[in-house]
């Protein structure tokens, strides 16, 4: 058991080390994050000026957005790596290893996530504090941070599922665009789901998106210990569903794999 865990830990450590070396991309994400938060801070200030009735103050909305954006930007888009491995045929060499291929990809993604998430979380908190002049209670942030990282891991697992479609589709770009936008809307990336029309609010609970985005971020809006516990259960439930789906997809994909050339 320890030996098996050690193999995945090795994948995680290697990708963590690689991510630490590729600082350009990380700093690029930080800049992107700062700009996006600045844009949304201006937007919500303007929306408040326009007299939109909000259940929470605009400053809390900026913190909400900081957390949802942090989760989205920290989760490594592993579907591109999977697509490239399938396209180039590298997948054949990787399948021969004495480890689960999906497990190895997930471990690599976790390495990237661990390298990115802390810096992006610090950026999120710093920017939100500067833009709003307000900081939520520390105990709430201490709850949001680990649940947010668990949500990032689930977002990444969902991206792996999209990546596995490359075995059939070749190019998963179009599917990933739509998936991402569905996540933005049904996950409440840009504003809480409560503010969307009834049909969005009706569909959202049947998707994993609120669990990974709006619910962790909403902990900042409505301090509630019961909600945090419910979120843990929801993350575990969707995590299980995702793991089973990934195993099923991969088994079908490996059976359907055709490699050209040599």
């Amino acid at each position, binding site marked *: 058991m320890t030996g098996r865990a050690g193999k995945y830990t090795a994948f995680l450590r290697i990708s963590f080390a690689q991510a630490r070396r590729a600082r*350009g991309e990380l700093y690029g994400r930080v800049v992107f994050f700062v700009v996006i938060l600045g844009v949304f801070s201006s937007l919500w200030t303007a929306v408040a000026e*326009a007299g939109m009735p909000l259940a929470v103050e605009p400053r809390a909305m900026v913190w909400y957005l900081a957390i949802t954006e942090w989760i989205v930007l920290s989760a490594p888009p592993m579907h591109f790596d999977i697509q490239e491995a399938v396209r180039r045929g590298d997948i054949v060499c990787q399948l021969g290893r004495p480890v689960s291929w999906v497990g190895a990809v997930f471990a690599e993604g976790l390495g990237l996530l661990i390298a990115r998430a802390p810096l992006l979380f610090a950026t999120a908190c710093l920017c939100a504090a500067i833009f709003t002049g307000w900081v939520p209670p520390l105990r709430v942030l201490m709850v949001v941070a680990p649940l947010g990282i668990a949500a990032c891991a689930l977002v990444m697992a969902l991206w792996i599922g999209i990546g596995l479609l490359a075995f059939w589709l070749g190019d998963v770009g179009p599917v990933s*665009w739509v998936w991402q936008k569905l996540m933005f809307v049904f996950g409440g990336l840009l504003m809480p789901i409560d503010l969307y029309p009834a049909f969005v609010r009706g569909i959202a609970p049947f998707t994993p998106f609120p669990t990974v985005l709006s619910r962790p971020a909403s902990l900042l809006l409505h301090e509630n210990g019961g909600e945090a516990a419910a979120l843990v259960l929801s993350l575990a439930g969707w995590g299980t569903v995702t793991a089973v789906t990934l195993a099923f997809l991969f088994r079908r994909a490996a059976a359907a794999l055709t490699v050209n050339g040599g």
Partner: protein
Amino acid sequence: MEPLERPVVNDGYTGHLRFAAALFATNLKASLAQRAAFAMQVLFMIVNNMVFFIFWWALMNRVDTIRGWRIGDIQVLFGIVAASVGLAGAVTGGVRHLGRLIDNGELDTLLTQPRPVLPYAVGLRMQPSGLGDVISGVAFILWSGQVSWREWPAVALAVSGSAVVFVACGVAFFSLAFWLGPIESVARQLWDLLITFSLYPEPLFGGLLRFALFTILPAGFVGYVPADLVRDPTLGRASELVLASAVYLALAIGIFNRGLRRYTSGSRFGTFG
């Protein structure tokens, strides 16, 4: 010893346009060879843009205006930016790969061709999804209800001008690879930022940021000025956009050509297409 002059066919603007049209036709044929993938990219990009707009639709259902901008204004802005980014991707899809070509020394193959390198490099590829952007962009403009048939020449000018500024910025950002090496991901993020800023109403931004959006990251000329031209076409606005497009294009060509003088071959055998 004098360096060897590279013989370049110089048959004027019409020759360059014919060459660009031939590149586009070849790319289109290659993309259409995989019809299902082509159709899927176009269709999914349309769905992608429509789903994203749900946010604005939901927001503007709750407030009439945001600093004077109504839902129709945002639809025009969104439509112009989508159509111009799509046009750029469909006709000059190679811009996105320019940094990699430079950094990997893959311009060698183009340097042996009797055509100017930059148009060749940017016209090498096509993004079929760009057509989906163009279709959804036109749909947003029609949906806005702010454009009658009389304004369609202004729409064509606005989309073309916006696309030229967008492509020029891409060329400038990715050409930094001549000096800085592997900057593809940073250049791509800069280019994405340009789109991000272009998609939000102009009055949200003020001060130094506003100055930046009309200079180093010219979202103003990709989104706001073209959208103003469509909503209220005047000769002044048209001239402003044409002038800005010409300036940014000239700057991009200048940066690329200056970088090309520093270019060193990757000394590797490769093919392109």
